[in-house]
Every structure is written in structure tokens, then in C-alpha cells.
């Protein structure tokens, strides 16, 4: 009766029946997308949670344990998770490693004088569609019997993304072309800027940790005056009183918190991929118009 036992164990181990697929996503945005497509059939563990910085994240033993147990592991790729290779090796994970950005046309940016690939591809919604496709394909491969459900969810999700894309373009269109610019310390909006025609300028003169000099502050003020930017999105840096001072002197508005690399905590306005986009647009567009 070995064949019966074999069949039963095969069936029991097949992800299609009963137990949800154990999936791990490297960071919150990706985790949200996987969940949107996988639904109840996938249990998603996220390594870099809400409001955390993936670039400098240091994986914990519990993360390694989650990956070791996982049946499928989603990462962004494009160099976003610099710690990934060593980490995967350490966990001994041999299952499928899905690079969500596969197929995206990458762009470059200059970081500290060095030209690197910009990993924040999801900031363009059309890239988001590519992510959805890759996730759906990977899930179908690992659980073919649920592929129908995955495809339906993916279709639904893609439609929402497309609708959002139209929304975003319409919102940006309400801003006069010459004013479609902001100054922000975030370097994550490259794809967004390219896709929707908004300039994201880096602030000149001040940085996160160093104590500011009068020259630096003056340079930022001059930059604001010369570019005609109306909004400043600089948080988690230097002294908020300094930003206030600059805002007073230039008449510029200091914007709220933008979410670029991670989702917010639930209930804070940017708890999902789609919410995040709406939240950012909700802040960026009025700021650009100078409201």
C-alpha cells in the first residue's frame, strides 16, 4: 500500500489543498502586492516591515527562520536588498527566489557621485503591473491548481492599478507644467518623476546628520528661490526648526510625510501599495500648486 501513502503525502504536501502557501517578501510594499494577488491561499511574512529602511536593514534570526520555512521568496531586485545574497546563503533556502522587478526597464541615478541603478521601480504604476505579472506567474508555478484564483485576483488588482494611474496623471495635470517640481531628500522618486513628469530635486546644502553651515542653508534658500519650487519634503533630518526657518524665509510650504521605500503602519494613510500612491499624490499635488 506504499503507493497510497505516497499519493496521500503528495496530496497533503501539495499547496493546492488546505494549507496556505508560506511566502516571504523582502519588504512591505512587495508583501502587500503578494497578498493582494495570493489572497487567502498565501500566507505572507514580510522581512522589512512598515516604516523601516530596506537599504540598511540587518536581518534578524527570526527572519532567517521564516525564510527557511518558506516555500517561495519574493524580492525586489535591482540592488535594493544589498544584504540579500549573504542572507539567502545563510538560511540555506533552496526554494524559488522571485525577482519582482524582472522585465522592468531600469534607470540610473547618481548617488554620492557614483552612478547606480535606481531600485525603486514600483514608483511607476506601469512597472507595478510588471510586478503583478511576475508575482502571478511565480505563484501559479508553485501552486498550479490555484492558478485560476491567482489569475483572477491579479487581473482585478491590475485594473485597480490602471485606474489609479489615470487618477495620478489627471491630478498631475492640474498642476501647471512649470510648477511640477518639489525638493525632497528622498531619492526614491526617480521612476515616479520620469513616469508622471514631476521633478524631484535634491536639496543642496543640508544633509541628514551633519550640522548645517550658513553656507549650506544659504545655498538651499537660493536653490528654492531660483527653481521656484513651492514645496519642501524633508523629514527625519536635521532640525525641524531649521526647516521651519527656511520655510519662513522663502515662503515655501513644508510638506507632510511621503512614503517611498516602505508602507506606513496600518491606519496611517499609506498601509498598502495603492493607498501609498494616493497618499503621496494627495500631498504632492497641492504642495506643487502652492496651497
Amino acid at each position, binding site marked *: 500500500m506504499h503507493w497510497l501513502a505516497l499519493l496521500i503525502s503528495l496530496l497533503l504536501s501539495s499547496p493546492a489543498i488546505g494549507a496556505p502557501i508560506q511566502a516571504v517578501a523582502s519588504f512591505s510594499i512587495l508583501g502587500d502586492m503578494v497578498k493582494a494577488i495570493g489572497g487567502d491561499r498565501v500566507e505572507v511574512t514580510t522581512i522589512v516591515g512598515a516604516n523601516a529602511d530596506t537599504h540598511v536593514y540587518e536581518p534578524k534570526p527570526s527572519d532567517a527562520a521564516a525564510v527557511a520555512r518558506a516555500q517561495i521568496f519574493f524580492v525586489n531586485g535591482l540592488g535594493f536588498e544589498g544584504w540579500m545574497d549573504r542572507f539567502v546563503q545563510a538560511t540555506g533556502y533552496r526554494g524559488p527566489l522571485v525577482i519582482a522587478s524582472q522585465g522592468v526597464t531600469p534607470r540610473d541615478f547618481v548617488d554620492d557621485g557614483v552612478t547606480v541603478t535606481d531600485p525603486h521601480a514600483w514608483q511607476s504604476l506601469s512597472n507595478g503591473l510588471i510586478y503583478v505579472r511576475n508575482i502571478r506567474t511565480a505563484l501559479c508555478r508553485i501552486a498550479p491548481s490555484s492558478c485560476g484564483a491567482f489569475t483572477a485576483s491579479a487581473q482585478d488588482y491590475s485594473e485597480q492599478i490602471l485606474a489609479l494611474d489615470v487618477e495620478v496623471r489627471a491630478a498631475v495635470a492640474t498642476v501647471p507644467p512649470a510648477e511640477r517640481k518639489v525638493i525632497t531628500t528622498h531619492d526614491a522618486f526617480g521612476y515616479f518623476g520620469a513616469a508622471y513628469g514631476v521633478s524631484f530635486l535634491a536639496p543642496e546644502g543640508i544633509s*541628514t*546628520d*551633519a*550640522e*548645517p*553651515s*550658513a*553656507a*549650506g*542653508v*544659504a545655498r538651499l*534658500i537660493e536653490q528654492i528661490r531660483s527653481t521656484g519650487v513651492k514645496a519642501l519634503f524633508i523629514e527625519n533630518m*536635521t*532640525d*525641524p*526648526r*531649521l526647516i*521651519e*526657518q*527656511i520655510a*519662513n*524665509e522663502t515662503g515655501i510650504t513644508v510638506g507632510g510625510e511621503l512614503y517611498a521605500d516602505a508602507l506606513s503602519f496600518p491606519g496611517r494613510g499609506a498601509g498598502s501599495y495603492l493607498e501609498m500612491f494616493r497618499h503621496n499624490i494627495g500631498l504632492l499635488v497641492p504642495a506643487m500648486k502652492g496651497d
Partner: protein
Amino acid sequence: MSLDVLWAPFVEFAFLRRALVGAVILALSAAPVGAFLMFRRMSLAGDAMSHAILPGAAVGFLLSGLAILPMTLGGFVAGLAVALLAGAVSRLTAQREDTSLAAFYLISLALGVLLVSLKGSNVDLMHVLFGTVLALNDDALILIGLVASISFVGLALIWRPLYAECLDPIFLRSVSRSGPVAHFIFLGLVVLNLVGGFQALGTLLAVGLMMLPAAAARFWVRRLEAVIGLGMAFGVLSAYLGLMASYYLGAASGPAIILVAGIIYVLSLIGAPRGAILSRVLPARHRVA
């Protein structure tokens, strides 16, 4: 390069004007306090008190973020508490005040670091320790103005007992009970100036503006009033030149101001009549009678 490099940045940028005003007022206020600290041989007490302020400012910061009133109030209360406790211990026991002050400021400092680490990150602690003179909003300027006013009036009131305590403390004790009161008020003024200073320069550098100009002045003049006057002048000069260095050379503003004060000190040490060199090298003249 015309002469208006000397004032052009201040004309063009409001933030620089405010920085100059704030720093100048602080320099004027802190110099007399620093001079008295020096004459009473309490020069290091200023630094000790600046650390003592920390937990109070930290508590204010934890409760209300980088807001002026809570941090100032908290810092002031903490500083006064340390001064009071140190004074009480030295009067009630055989222990001298420099020891008890050291003990209490260390306790206070450790408490402050602990409190800040509970909520903030390292960056936040730096904000408490190093404010920036480039970010003086209206509240900060008002605070600095208030500190200076109280300081001037306070010093005028306790001038005589302070002076007597410097010159002949035993005599003062024999004629008056105002000695300890004046001493405590004086420490209060030290704390007040430090608390005002930390908004602009942070706790550590605020001491620099208090001590360096007065110490440099001592190389030029002897009399108390002259040391105070010259100390004020050196302080104002440090504020101006420091901000210029921050603008034209891109140096961080607070440290630049204090470094200029330090350069003035070293130059005085080398070049002033009472400094290290001239006092040895100049031929001594004497009158006939």
C-alpha cells in the same frame, strides 16, 4: 571684493540676521557670568552645569519634541536642582562643593542619556546637545532676550555679595548672610544662560561662549569690570566672525563661533601684555619713585 562682503550675507538672508542677533545677545549676557565664574575659580563648573541641564531638557523633549518652552523649563529646573543639591551637601557635610557638584552633574547626565535613549535615536540626542544658531525662530529669540534681561538685572542685584565672596569670603560671612543666597542666585544665572545658549549652540558649546571670551580678556586687562567689558566685545566678535566663517567657508555654525572664540584666546595668550610671551619679553620699566 568690496567692503560689503562684511555685511552682505546678513542683508540678504533673514536667517543669518536672526542668528547674529541671537548669538550677540547671548555673548553679551554670558560674558559677565563667565567672568565671575573665572574669578571665583569655578571655571569648570560651567561645563558641569551644562551637563546637568541635560535630563531636564531631555524630559521636555520627550514630552513635547523640540519645543522651546518645555525643554527650557525642564533644563532650568534640572540645573537648579543640581546646584541646590550640590550646595546643600557641601553645607551640611564636610564635602566640598566641587565634589558634590561633580557627583550630581554626573548623575544628572547619566539620567539624561538614559531618558533620551528610551525614545529618541542618536540623532535626537544630538539635537538636544547641539542646537543650531541658524534655526532661531521667534520663540527662541524671545527666550534669549529674556535670559539676557534677567541675567543683567540679577547680576546687578547680587553684584556686591558676589564681589565680596571673590575677595574675602570669611569677612562676608561675618557681616552678612547674603553670601549663600547670592551664590545660589549666581548659579541660577549660570544655568539660565546655559539654557538660553543651548537653544542656539547646544549645551556643550554654550559653555564655550561663556568662558572663552572672558578667559581671553584676562590676558589683556586686570579689573573685573574691564574683563567683563572686553569679554563681551570678544564674544560679539566671535559671533560675527563665526557666522561669516560659516557662510563663506561652509563651516558648521555653532562650532565655528566657538572656534573663533578659541582663536581669539590663543592669540591673546600669545600676543597680549599679560599673555605668555609679552610678559616675559618686554623690558620692564619702572618709575623713579
